């Protein structure tokens, strides 16, 4: 077992994210699985920001609880992160900027003063170059080969960088050599492990999944933490032939996506809770007009503007209930980029097959943090069937024909002889409105009910077509964790920690949070001896859904709503509490 965590802390504008990405990239190229946590604030300059790159085997699914190396760019970073450092850790800092007394640090934590500014001055007056020296020192302590750091730095600056890349490489070497002369590698230092892995954020995985599934149109309005889906798509729009539209607001974004889908291409929009709140009415329109649509809802801590750069799973109720009236939908909740890729592919297939809106529920923790993926885990070959599924045959065409599955033949504008009007009003099988002059007349009352039944029947098919609850870990364990979405990561790591202590647990995770097959879910829950529900929200929204669907009330809970991700140690502590004392 190997586990190394490297942190860098400073103020916004210090380049912390670049340091984190560079270190993460080095570790993933060494062949390790990595979890990179980017903790930032809604400011462009100032505040405290930090990044942690955690690598190891078995695969880290969360940020973990402790770190081995800290690169501190300011004294606050020492104060904030020293308590999380394991014995044997090293803090890298520049004595020219501030002092660190080892006597003030936890037992076994060392401080290594590295003259990063002095190194930088040899090349430039721009102090940002100090980070290269710091990264050099950190790399030595972490076991990252110097030539690999050079390679990653050069790649990050690109071919045109010229002397800036040379300065970085030079400063990195100086920092590396300084550390070698004054310290020894960390006890957890890693060596090369194998073939390089792919490092990506949840949002990048979602964008990739969308592209693989045949998405040709994305409309979006900037909102953290969903924006980077648009950024990736926009950067690849020309190459992949995808129209990416930054709309005037989220209302326009979702309507453009619905229009594009109606017009004949696979379309998506993405947002966070605030923007999704604006999209609610349109979501129902997609349901009513039976227009395929994929919506990514990357949650952040609410209510209202809330904590724009912090995570939460507080929008489940909103996603479940979004839109007046009732229409079929599904909510897929990946926990890792690999799952995010596949969930997005699946969302497009479901939207197309069932002609209804499909939600992909992400959150800041999954959307913005980076994790490694093996190439074979995300096969890019996805079948993309033609959307021309109806051909005119001279017979009466009914866009909303009553069928057993609830799915009706969908023509596309431009197809001769199949003209219809998609109406947000209630309509008959031809699409003719029954909402005004006909409403209340007995035969049309019946028609309305039939049409509702037809649409809602799709839910049965969707249940069968979506991924059911899945078990991880030994059957019959003393404790079963119940979780959905990104919190699954901390639960996975907590299970490993508990197993080390001889406590066997398992996990019942819900890749599809809606719709559920109540009988099946109830049967699965019955297999658990004791349960612990883990959710990042105040009221246990998924627990409430499970109770509503199955009657099973999960009373032992770990609910977190402070904006921070769930940490494995919190899960471990709560699990031990539940097992020892029967919970609250």
């Amino acid at each position, binding site marked *: 077992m190997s586990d190394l965590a490297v942190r860098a802390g400073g103020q916004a504008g210090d380049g912390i994210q670049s340091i984190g990405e560079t270190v993460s990239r080095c570790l993933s190229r060494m062949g390790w699985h990595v979890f990179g946590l980017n903790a930032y604030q809604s400011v462009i300059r100032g505040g405290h920001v930090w990044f942690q790159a955690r690598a190891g085997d078995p695969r880290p699914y969360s940020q973990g609880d402790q770190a081995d190396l800290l690169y501190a760019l300011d004294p606050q970073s020492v104060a904030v992160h020293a308590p999380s450092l394991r014995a044997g850790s090293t803090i890298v800092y520049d004595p020219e900027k501030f002092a660190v007394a080892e006597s003030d640090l936890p037992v076994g934590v060392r401080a290594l003063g590295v003259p990063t500014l002095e190194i930088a001055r040899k090349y430039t007056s721009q102090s940002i170059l100090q980070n290269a020296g710091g990264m050099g020192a950190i790399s030595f302590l972490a076991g990252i080969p110097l030539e690999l750091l050079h390679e990653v730095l050069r790649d990050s600056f690109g071919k045109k960088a010229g002397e800036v890349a040379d300065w970085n490489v030079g400063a990195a070497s100086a920092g590396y050599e300084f550390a070698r002369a004054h310290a020894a590698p960390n006890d957890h230092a890693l060596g090369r492990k194998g073939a390089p892995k792919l490092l990506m954020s949840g949002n990048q995985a979602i964008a990739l999944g969308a592209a693989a599934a045949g998405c040709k149109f994305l409309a979006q309005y900037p909102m953290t933490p969903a924006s980077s889906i648009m950024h990736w798509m926009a950067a690849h729009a020309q190459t992949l032939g995808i*129209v990416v539209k930054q709309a005037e607001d989220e209302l326009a974004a979702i309507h453009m996506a619905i229009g594009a889908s109606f017009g004949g291409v696979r379309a998506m929009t993405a947002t966070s809770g605030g923007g999704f709140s604006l999209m609610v009415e349109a979501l129902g329109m997609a349901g009513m007009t039976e227009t395929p649509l994929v919506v990514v809802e990357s949650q952040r801590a609410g209510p209202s503007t809330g904590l724009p750069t912090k995570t939460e799973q507080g929008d489940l109720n909103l996603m479940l209930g979004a839109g007046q009236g009732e229409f079929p939908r599904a909510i897929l909740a990946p926990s890792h980029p690999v799952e995010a890729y596949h969930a997005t592919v699946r969302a497009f297939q479901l939207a197309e097959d069932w002609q209804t809106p499909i939600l992909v529920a992400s959150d800041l923790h999954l959307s913005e943090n980076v994790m490694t993926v093996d190439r074979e885990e995300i096969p890019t070959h996805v079948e993309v069937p033609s959307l021309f599924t109806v051909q005119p045959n001279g017979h009466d065409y009914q866009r909303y024909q009553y069928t057993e599955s609830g799915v009706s033949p969908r023509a596309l504008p*431009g197809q001769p002889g199949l003209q*219809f009007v998609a109406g947000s009003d209630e309509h008959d099988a031809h699409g003719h409105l029954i909402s005004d002059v006909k409403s209340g007349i007995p035969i049309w009352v019946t028609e309305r009910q039939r049409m509702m039944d037809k649409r809602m029947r799709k839910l049965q098919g969707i249940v069968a077509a979506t991924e059911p609850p899945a078990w991880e870990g030994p059957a019959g364990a003393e404790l079963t964790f119940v979780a959905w979405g990104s919190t699954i990561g901390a639960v996975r790591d907590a299970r490993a920690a508990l197993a080390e202590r001889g406590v066997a647990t398992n996990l019942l995770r819900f890749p599809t949070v809606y719709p559920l097959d109540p009988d099946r879910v109830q049967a699965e829950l019955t297999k658990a001896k004791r349960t612990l529900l883990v959710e990042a929200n105040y009221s246990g929204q998924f627990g409430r859904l499970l109770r509503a669907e199955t009657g099973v009330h999960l009373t032992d809970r770990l609910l977190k709503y402070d904006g921070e991700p769930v940490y494995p140690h919190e899960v471990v502590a709560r699990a031990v509490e539940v097992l020892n004392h029967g919970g609250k």
Partner: protein
Amino acid sequence: MAESSAQPTPVPTGPALPVVGKSDTKPTWCPGCGDFGVVAAVESALKRLKIAPYNVVIVSGIGCSSNLPHFLSSYGFHGIHGRALPVAEGIRWANHGLTVIGTGGDGDGFGIGAGHFVHAMRRNVDLTYVTMDNQIYGLTTGQASPTSQMGQKTKSTPTGVIENPVDPIALALASGATYIARGFSGDVKQLTDLVAGGIQHKGFAFVDVFSPCVTYNKVNTFDFFRQRVYKLESAGHDPSDIVAAWQRALEWGDKIPIGLFYRTERPSYEDLEEVLHAGPLLKQPAGLAGHESVLDEFV
């Protein structure tokens, strides 16, 4: 400029010509409603241009006038209040071989949908937007609209409107629309010309139509407009002159201009969107086949 903004597919003329006609749904408007003149003009314009009904999509929001797509034999999307334009834009970008026409009322377009109206115009998306402007909310039984005049008494303003009305023509000029016209449903012949001109125009064409509500607006009636409107083309107005267009746009009172205020050539959004240079989006390949190297950036 690449040939990205495909014009509607020409259809051969002949007796069996598949032209846009009435659908089997009868309009539900009140007898005498101005909107009858508008649907007649849209139908005539499409017939004149010989655009096949299957290549036309009429997109609307909610309101009396937004029922229009149901009454013609083309494709239609009858969406929700105020959101016709973003749906119409999405359809254009999915398949810019289609003729896309937005229709709706003054509340739909200049009230709840005002933001989309402005942005669609600055983008110069190649579609035609026809508003049936009756200066009242009809479907909800007679409240003030964004174009109701100062002082007009309605159910929601019993002592009179105290907000300045939106001037759709001036708003369109300010927002960058490239074809800006005003019609009157009492003059279907001129209105047909204006709508046909808008459909032929490459870029955002806006046709605001005085389309009186005979039930809830007792001020802005057919007679009100008949007594006041005059035709810009008869008054020597030069539609390429934006300053003159502004001056005409500001005219209101005893003399109200109808006709083409302004027309200019500017690349459409579809012209400038490079992805569409390869043809209508729905005909382009989809998926990552051939693009597997996109994963290399993640190493």
